[in-house]
């Protein structure tokens, strides 16, 4: 207990944390002083060895990892619980959304989803001029960044080309904020070239938005729709994901003698342990935490049947290279056809097993495969199925190396394509690269342009100037900067060619 006490004292006295940030870390310490949901011995040991990982979601799952409320419900009905009337104009609609997202829980304690904002607000925009719309969006965006300063918070626009989407792109390029993160749902038959070109200009200005392959995502989900949240996670609207458990493929490969042993024995064994870990966490959430008694359910913002379980994997690159080494074969993941083919084989094996495993209290009764984008503590391990930092081939080769795997990662997969600054003079090249990537089956297109102060750490953005200030012990206003700084120190993210970042989130204080 002495250690825990010390740690809590460190949190309380940390000169670099705000009171709210201290309260958040203290709450994590309190949750983690409770006992973990009951696990079998094999699962427990795999978790302790971090071959499987619970993303440090906490010992007592009292809220789903990601919640995607159907905000259209509160805009149409208001809320009895929150004593909100039905909004009548744009000001009231934005105000209602500001209140609603404040009540959306998630693993970070802050909302990860702000909704398909353009579709939500368009009905209120008829009598609003473009200039007024721009001004109101700008104030809304500033509020989000200042009051909910977490880069996992994600807004969606598209697939239609509309005034709100354009206003948001304009504001986003102008403000260069970390939050909210932004995805354009792009459908070549609906969105049009103009909107994509505008998005490309915005990417060049601030490395946002991501471009989601709307036709592929739409076909994966149902009529009620999906949202892109946090770090490129595709999840059902009106639900979300109860948990994300991930498999360290490199550690699994290290326990196998060769490719056949990996695919036939070791991988299925550890996959089963990850399923068991998910079940224990979901069981606690559904049967003990009383989360689903919330007004969010009774008022119809979310539905308890619409929460999936995300089956994450990472360190594919290291797993493939290790298995090739064991076989005495040359080749490096991302660069050689044989290595890329082995990656695809592993992905197919993962997908088949996830598809075959029934899960209780999970949307459609099956987990969804996910290419997990990393934690700030993943030293020497590459996020998801990505190609290791600093060794990425040119962006076209990069896309073609990984595109065949994308179709299997139904709940999200992302690569970060780093483009040098010369692309600023030629946005048409960025547009074509994006179109090529989506046509090749990429579920998500994300580009980082060297020279931007805003840089991606996996899916969330950090400001390089904030990292430098944090390192100088000045403190950071946004929660994710601390994670970004840790990721930058511990991993190779800032040496990415030329300097992309790729790590997701960090669980608690000082780890």
């Amino acid at each position, binding site marked *: 207990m002495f250690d825990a006490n010390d740690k809590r004292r460190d949190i309380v006295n940390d000169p670099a944390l705000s009171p709210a940030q201290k309260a958040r870390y203290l709450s994590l310490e309190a949750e983690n002083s409770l006992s973990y949901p009951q696990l079998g011995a094999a699962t427990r040991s795999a978790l302790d060895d971090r071959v499987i990982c619970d993303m440090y979601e906490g010992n007592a799952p009292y809220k789903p990892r990601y919640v995607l409320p159907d905000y259209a419900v509160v805009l149409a009905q208001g809320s009895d619980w929150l004593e909100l009337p039905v909004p009548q104009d744009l000001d009231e609609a934005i105000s209602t959304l500001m209140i609603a997202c404040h009540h959306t829980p998630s693993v970070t304690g802050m909302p990860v989803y702000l909704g398909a904002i353009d579709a939500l607000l368009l009905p209120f925009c008829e009598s609003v001029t473009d200039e007024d719309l721009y001004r109101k969006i700008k104030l809304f965006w500033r509020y989000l960044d200042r009051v909910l300063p977490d880069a996992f918070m994600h807004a969606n626009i598209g697939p239609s080309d509309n005034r709100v989407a354009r206003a948001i792109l304009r504001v986003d390029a102008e403000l260069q904020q970390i939050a909210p993160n932004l995805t354009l749902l792009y459908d070549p038959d609906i969105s049009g070239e103009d909107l994509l070109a505008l998005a490309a200009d915005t990417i060049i200005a601030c490395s946002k938005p991501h471009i989601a392959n709307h036709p592929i995502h739409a076909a994966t989900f149902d009529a009620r729709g999906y949202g892109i949240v946090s770090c490129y996670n595709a999840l059902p609207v009106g639900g979300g994901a109860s948990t994300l458990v991930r498999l360290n493929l490199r550690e699994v490969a290290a326990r196998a003698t060769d490719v056949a042993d990996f695919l036939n024995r070791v991988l299925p064994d550890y996959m089963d342990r990850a399923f068991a870990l998910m079940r224990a966490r979901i069981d606690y959430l559904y049967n003990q935490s009383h989360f689903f008694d919330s007004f969010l359910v009774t008022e119809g913002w979310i539905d308890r049947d619409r929460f999936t379980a995300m089956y994450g994997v990472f360190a594919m690159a290291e797993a493939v290279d290790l298995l090739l080494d064991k076989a005495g074969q040359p080749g490096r993941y991302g660069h050689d056809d044989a290595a890329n083919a082995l990656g695809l084989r592993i992905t197919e094996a993962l997908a088949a097993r996830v598809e075959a495993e029934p899960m209780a209290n999970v949307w459609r009764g099956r987990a969804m495969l996910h290419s997990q984008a990393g934690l700030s503590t993943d030293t020497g391990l590459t996020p998801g199925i990505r190609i290791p930092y600093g060794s990425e081939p040119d962006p*076209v080769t990069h896309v073609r190396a990984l595109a065949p795997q994308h179709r299997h990662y139904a709940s999200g997969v992302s690569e970060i394509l780093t483009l040098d600054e010369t692309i600023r*003079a030629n946005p048409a*090249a960025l547009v074509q*690269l994006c179109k090529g990537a989506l*046509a090749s089956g990429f579920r998500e297109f994300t580009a980082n342009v060297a020279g931007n102060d805003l840089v991606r750490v996996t899916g969330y953005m950090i400001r390089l100037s904030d990292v430098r200030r944090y390192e100088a012990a000045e403190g950071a206003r946004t929660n994710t900067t601390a994670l970004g700084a840790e990721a930058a120190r511990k991993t190779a993210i800032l040496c990415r060619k030329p300097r992309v970042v790729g790590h997701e989130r960090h669980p608690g204080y000082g780890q």
Partner: protein
Amino acid sequence: MSGIQATVSKILTFSCVDGPGNRLVLFLQGCNFACPGCHNPHTVGLCNDCGDCIPACPQGALSLVGGHIAFDPSACDQCDLCLRACPISANPMVQHLEVADVLALIRDNRAFLNGVTVSGGEATLQLKFVIALFTAIKSDPDLAGLSCFVDTNGHLGAEAWARLLPVTDGVMLDIKALSTDRHRALTGRGNAKSLASARIVQAAGKLYELRYLMVPGKNDQDDEIAALIGLVRALGDDLRVKLNAFQHHGVRGPARDWPKMSRDGIEATATRLRAAGLRKVVTPIVYL
């Protein structure tokens, strides 16, 4: 297909600096200029199978087979030490490709491309191949949407342009200097053909960009810039003019002692060009 082979120094499937949009670029080997300040000197010469590069390769990717250099791409790790060892600025890693080979590569990358650019070296030295390639692209329904561009020093006669231009969508033309003497000092040749090419290509409506590589003390004099303005104004104020800055990247020999062109120098010249009425003056995004 045609059976004509190109000697290709390098192929890029992603380039955003060789014309509009993303382009597949073929760097063809061999050049008719001998610029001391060349940034890609290894594309100038043609291999004479001397074998001096073989011991320089740490991967053992080079050998002599039947008196000719043989290159094993699977062993190569792209360290480029062979290029430094070559005494005649050639490239032992060149590939010999037919039109059909290049078409296959373009088809394979079609979804990512806005067009194809042939560069060099001096692309027009392999004119027959370029014409055959562009003709084949234009006649293939799947590829016809791709624009075909040439990056050239313009040392090409009117008859050759008459054959090339009908299958070409855009030309990026380098003018190294306006005065003949300075041009000769920078390239080893006079500039009459290059200047005539600028007029021919512009008259055909296909001069996408005039490029001017500024080298301090060599072609940035007041009268030189005045002559550049005169040339562009005669061609049309809307012509896109790209000012490039001489840097040391890739440069060999005495030109490494030439000073680099500064951002300030480029920007001052750009300001002067714009003030003179040139409407599309482009400056580099990145200075090395």
